[in-house]
């Protein structure tokens, strides 16, 4: 992104839902906000999961559940509900849904296995190590 604007806990309204959902972070490339351009919008869902003693298949199952949730809530067409946000009130298509795991409890092997599986489940995966 050229000019990223990242906002926390940003309300997103999806069609057919009664209430907005709040995405952990919404990143918008302000360089793509000019008329005629398609805004680049990325959503980030942060999850803390206990991967201790999980096997590969159990870890992938967890990834799948979190990816399903993130895709259901923070992908596709959304209306930004945060007042003051440059996209406030506008309907935009989320370009990419990201999932962020706390990486401390994940073994290098599970990290690799999950990173490689994530695109198949429709998300880009990152690890946060505090």
């Amino acid at each position, binding site marked *: 992104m050229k000019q990223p604007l990242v906002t926390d806990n940003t309300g997103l309204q999806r069609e057919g839902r009664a209430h907005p959902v709040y995405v952990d972070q919404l990143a918008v490339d302000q360089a793509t906000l000019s008329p005629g351009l398609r805004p680049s919008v990325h959503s980030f869902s942060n999850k803390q999961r206990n991967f201790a003693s999980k*096997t590969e*298949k159990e870890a992938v*199952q967890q990834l*799948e559940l979190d990816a399903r949730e993130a*895709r259901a809530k923070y992908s596709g067409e959304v209306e930004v509900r945060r007042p003051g946000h440059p996209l406030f009130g506008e309907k935009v298509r989320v370009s990419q849904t990201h999932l962020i795991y706390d990486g401390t409890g994940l*073994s290098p*092997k599970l990290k690799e*296995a999950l990173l*490689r599986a994530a*695109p198949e489940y429709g998300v880009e995966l990152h690890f946060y190590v505090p």
Partner: protein
Amino acid sequence: MVSNFTSMSPDEWNKSDSFHLDLFSHVRPLDQGFEALEPLLEVIESLSDDLRPDRIHHTRRELKYSRQALRKRLRESYIGTNTVIRLVRSQPPEAMISLNGWEYDSQPISTVKISIEPFAFLREPGQAERRAGQLVSFVRAIASCLPLTFGLGHSFTDVCLGTDPTVKDLSTPRPIYETFWLNVYGPAMVQALGRQRLLSTPAALMEELPHGAVLWLTRPTPADFDSEEARLAQARALVHLRPELSLDSTLSTLRQRSLEFSPVPMEFDPDVADILRMEADFQGVLGGKRSLVERFNRYHPPPVSEWLPASRAPAPDVDDVKATIDTYEGLYAEQLVALFHTEVPQVMKGTLEALPHLDWHLWHMGWGRRLSHEQRETLVPSLGAFLSRYLVEVLGGRWVPRKKLEEAAVVIGDRAWLPFLRARHALQNQEAPLDYSCSQLFRTAQRLARAHSH
């Protein structure tokens, strides 16, 4: 006591490894409906008993596998426009087969993947050839119903240690970065390399597949992927396909990687050996186990300093000795169990192995560094009291409660141990849970108590 000198088999050393077979196609079978998937399911159903999956894993509730069940729950395969099907085994070995349809660079792509854990399954004496043969037949059968663009079968750890971006970036054709035990090149790659050049690659098996793809093996089985013979075969094949590379440097890179798979004896300080071993096993070969073990072999924690001669230990200065001990045992120690019972289930049982597991967890998760002031002030009494429990209950120690927690002691023989002071030291920085482990204090106290009673 943990055995100090351990000689280890390569399988034991690399026990977290798995075997991965990944096949890629630009055709997404489910896009043409369930019927298009059935030939692939037939291939999976005809795997032998020791590989065939029997459970559907991607559905909301895990189900017994049948084609009908899968068809009935087809809706649950969709995540947006992606489709996932994951079949697993309920019996060892762990095997996971996925048939996924997704997008790469806005292009449709599908994958057929098998992962088998542990890798040792493919090394089992007397079975290695048959199992390798079965995987090769699987690839043949899949290739006859799905046009393949690329594929590989290899030790997952070795793939990850390599530098091949192909498995992450699937646009073809592209230079070949690595060769694996099993290799599938689709028509675009075959054309880019030249079919004749490819077919004359030194290989254990070279076979043309339907839809213009080529399947080839560097070795008869994946079992010896890190051996000198296998590395030579991988290097020779790679240099044949990319003549600008030098055999010597290709081979030396691969040999270097093989070193990671050869066990280094663990000669850890016995007072913290199990903590270090948990960390080495957690990191595994992919996490640089070899250099970790070499570093841990040189590591010795500082001698335990949190004690006084019993004769110099101050007398209790609290108003109610019994009530204070009840607070230590009933409140503080229980608080620790409440805090850690999920992540360190051993603390629930109160067995001796709980101490090293707790030490490792505190160290590994960076608790010495991550705590806020309030969290630290809560955890110090809990950890100190939890350690004290072992000194009192296992070693027969006697409580000496004090108003100032760090002065509170447990007297065993001629020493007064200061568990709360130890806990404070253990939580002062990143490495402190190891340098000031509960395990080391307990083991030191245990040795001295034994010596004292003789």
